[in-house]
């Protein structure tokens, strides 16, 4: 009898304990400030005609955005940089109205007058210096990126800021148009304080950010009364959340789902050509792809239009070169096209030194599209008598494997998140660029850097002051790498964003992280 009652007490206690544990654990979320749940369910928000929610693929709060008060500088438009990136991927005034190169390594930026932070304080040169100092202090690697040492930003007067670059760097203004260099108040309190059209209302750590309009914004007022960015990592869950109406907008939609969302009555998609290009980097310094005839044969085998239509479900643009046509100095229209002509490709294979080796196609396991692209390419190569095998590696290993020269062919895609795109051509094709440096330092080779002549062209383009000059030098590089088969161009990327059919007013941008939400509206 005693044992039975003891067991009952034990079971009752266990039951209560388990219930308490679950309640406690789930309650811990509530204690973070979520009284109606968080994540992808925001039905209550969606019911308001002026509140909108956007599902992001990345956590808008996680990535050590402490210097921005804990929120991502991407997407949110809480912070504004000195320089804007236009839809043509050019620089334009934002917080700075004009800038000039005082000498080869000195830039001076004049600040816009009448700009106020969300707490009412005026924007000053000291605030800009302080903002950059905080970035330098937080990320020791930033000087290497923008070519300015931590003591290289100074206030000349209340409205003028001077930047001292370590070398001649004409692309500097574009470089600081990146979201990383949004200006923030020098003494931020708990909430992030910027100058942008939206201000922070609430941050749910590792889950969401809620914004409201900054009423005293100097520019046009924004339409949404509330804008929430939620983290929904899984792409399929983002789509399901959108279909249910839990979110109004979902970014980075799988291309395979785009057509269905576009066809559905209650959802729609928006696409936007981005500065990113997908291509095959061909290893010029390992047999058999060191043979130009074989490289040209591979190019003749590829049908870029079919890749876009069949593999990428119609999103993207067939590429002729390695640089997206969005970028001002891209020379897409002037580049030669190869085909497809597999008969000619077979003849070139016959004429080449290729003797049946299997080519390795390296892909990043994170990019699901790449696997299908690689399989398609492999089929076409097989059709012209060239054997290939696909090697898939995890994202963290991918770049090291690529730059170690372990593959004959590597599927890569590169783009820019600012108006400064010079680094793309330098990283890809200069012998000292990040893609080739490893092998170049080891044995004087590289991966897909054609050599000294192209290096010189890139250096001239890098020092060029105008787009026309850049186009001349970088255009020559693009022609050279296409003609010699150092690359197999595939597609220029299009970002896909899905929305509820009743939502409109999304002002897309080539850099998707700069999409403008200020005109969002909802119809009945």
């Amino acid at each position, binding site marked *: 009898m005693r044992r039975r009652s003891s067991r009952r007490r034990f079971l009752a206690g266990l039951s209560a304990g*388990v219930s308490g*544990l*679950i*309640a406690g*654990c*789930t309650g*811990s*979320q*509530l204690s973070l400030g*979520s009284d*109606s*749940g*968080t*994540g*992808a*369910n925001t*039905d209550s928000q969606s019911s308001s005609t002026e509140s909108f929610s956007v599902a992001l693929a990345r956590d808008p709060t996680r*990535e*050590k955005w*402490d210097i921005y008060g804990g929120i991502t500088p*991407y997407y949110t438009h809480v912070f504004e940089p000195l320089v804007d990136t236009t839809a043509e991927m050019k620089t334009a005034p934002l917080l700075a109205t004009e800038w000039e190169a005082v000498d080869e390594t000195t830039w001076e930026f004049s600040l816009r007058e009448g700009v106020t932070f969300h707490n009412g304080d005026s924007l000053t040169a000291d605030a800009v210096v302080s903002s950059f100092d905080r970035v330098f202090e937080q*990320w*020791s*690697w930033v*000087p*290497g*990126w923008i070519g300015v040492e931590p003591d290289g930003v100074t206030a000349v007067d209340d409205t003028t800021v001077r930047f001292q670059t370590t070398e001649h760097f004409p692309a500097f203004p574009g470089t600081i148009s*990146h*979201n*990383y260099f949004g200006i923030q108040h020098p003494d931020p309190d708990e909430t992030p304080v910027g100058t942008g059209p939206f201000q922070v209302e609430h941050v749910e*750590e*590792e889950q969401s950010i809620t914004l409201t309009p900054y009423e005293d914004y100097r520019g046009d007022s924004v339409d949404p009364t509330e804008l929430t960015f939620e*983290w*929904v*990592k*899984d792409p*399929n*869950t983002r789509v*399901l*959340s959108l*279909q*249910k109406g*839990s979110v109004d907008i979902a970014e980075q939609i799988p291309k395979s789902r785009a057509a269905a969302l576009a066809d559905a009555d209650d959802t729609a998609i928006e696409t936007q050509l981005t500065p990113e290009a997908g291509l095959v980097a061909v290893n010029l310094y390992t047999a058999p792809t060191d043979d130009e005839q074989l490289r040209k044969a591979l190019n003749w085998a590829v049908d870029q239009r079919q890749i876009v239509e069949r593999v990428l479900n119609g999103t993207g643009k067939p590429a002729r070169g390695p640089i997206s046509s969005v970028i001002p100095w891209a020379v897409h229209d002037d580049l030669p096209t190869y085909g497809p002509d597999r008969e000619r490709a077979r003849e070139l294979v016959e004429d080449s030194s290729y003797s049946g080796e299997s080519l390795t196609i390296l892909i990043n396991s*994170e990019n699901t599209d790449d696997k299908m692209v690689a399989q398609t390419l492999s089929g076409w190569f097989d059709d012209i008598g060239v054997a290939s095998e696909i090697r898939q590696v995890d*994202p*963290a*290993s*991918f*770049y*090291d*494997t690529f730059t170690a020269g372990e593959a004959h062919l590597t599927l890569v895609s*590169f783009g*820019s*998140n*600012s108006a400064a795109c010079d*680094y793309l051509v330098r*990283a890809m094709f200069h012998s000292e660029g*990040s893609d080739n*440096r490893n092998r170049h330092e080891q044995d004087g080779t590289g991966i897909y850097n054609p050599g000294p002549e192209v290096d010189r062209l890139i250096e001239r383009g890098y020092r060029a002051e105008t787009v026309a000059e850049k186009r001349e030098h970088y255009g020559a590089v693009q022609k050279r790498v296409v003609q010699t088969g150092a690359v197999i161009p595939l597609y220029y990327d299009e970002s896909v964003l899905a929305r509820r059919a009743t939502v409109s007013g999304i002002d897309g941008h080539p850099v998707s*992280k700069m999409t403008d939400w200020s005109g969002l509206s909802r119809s009945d």
Partner: protein
Amino acid sequence: MNGWKLARRLATMLVVLFGVSVLTYGLIFVTPGDPARTILTQQMGGQTPSQEAVEQFRAAKGLDDPFPVQYARWVGNAVRGDLGQSYYSDQAVTAMIATRLPNTIALGVASMLVAVAIAVPAGIASAVEPGSQTDYAAQFGALVGVSMPNFWLGYLLIIVCSLWLDLFPVAGAGGLEYLVLPALTLGSGMAAVIARLVRTAMLDVLDDAHIRTARSKGLRERIVVYKHALRNALVPVVTIIGLQLSYVLNGAVVVEVVFQRPGLGTLLVDAIFARDYPVVQGVTLLIGVIFVVTNFAVDLTYSRLDPRIDFGGEPT
């Protein structure tokens, strides 16, 4: 249980945990992939970082030091309770774990409850009437449960229960309503395994002499099954429930992603892909501790369920 055995067991646990930490650190260290480049690329929104930036990041994080130096530094801090800071976010690893652990515990406990609630009755019903329609239905259900991938079941439940029936939210973390679909997703796979084991164990026990004796005494079948048979069948079931902990942690990775629950599974996977060594080490160590402690608890439970079994799981 005596003090000497307990001390020996604790010492073994420490050795296991040390081995886990060395292996994890060593394996991730020799795996290709540069944390500096990976993390910078992610932080820069996919933009390729410059070589100078990569080198400065490596220097700042001590990534240029040899493996023994890095490992010794980590161990030195870990024994003082400092698991380091994430390369990615600079947050303290202990804080990151503390934030996510409740979600994973809630998911694990809820899914285990779902599993046991489904599996034990199904296994018993199946064993009591072997060859019956109930038995076939239970076995078929178990087969489906074992075969169905977590992510697929997760999406299916979202479509049916959330989109069509509007019963639960699609995803997120919050109240109990957010826990139902993830727990069903994760629990169903475990239920299938446990149900099959309950059935097998019950069939064995129901053939035993003491069950025939109980029946011959005229005891009601319910008493025979639930009091005399089930208790004896529970020893292997408890073992498998303990081992299913690994399933919970593995499954949590997928379920947490599908249902957008910030937990240890997603934290670990993201850290592995980013080569965020301190986070990988911290979470792995915690998982090791959970495993070791659970096994210890299972051993203790054996002797509680069957006094003939000595502490440590060895029959006396």
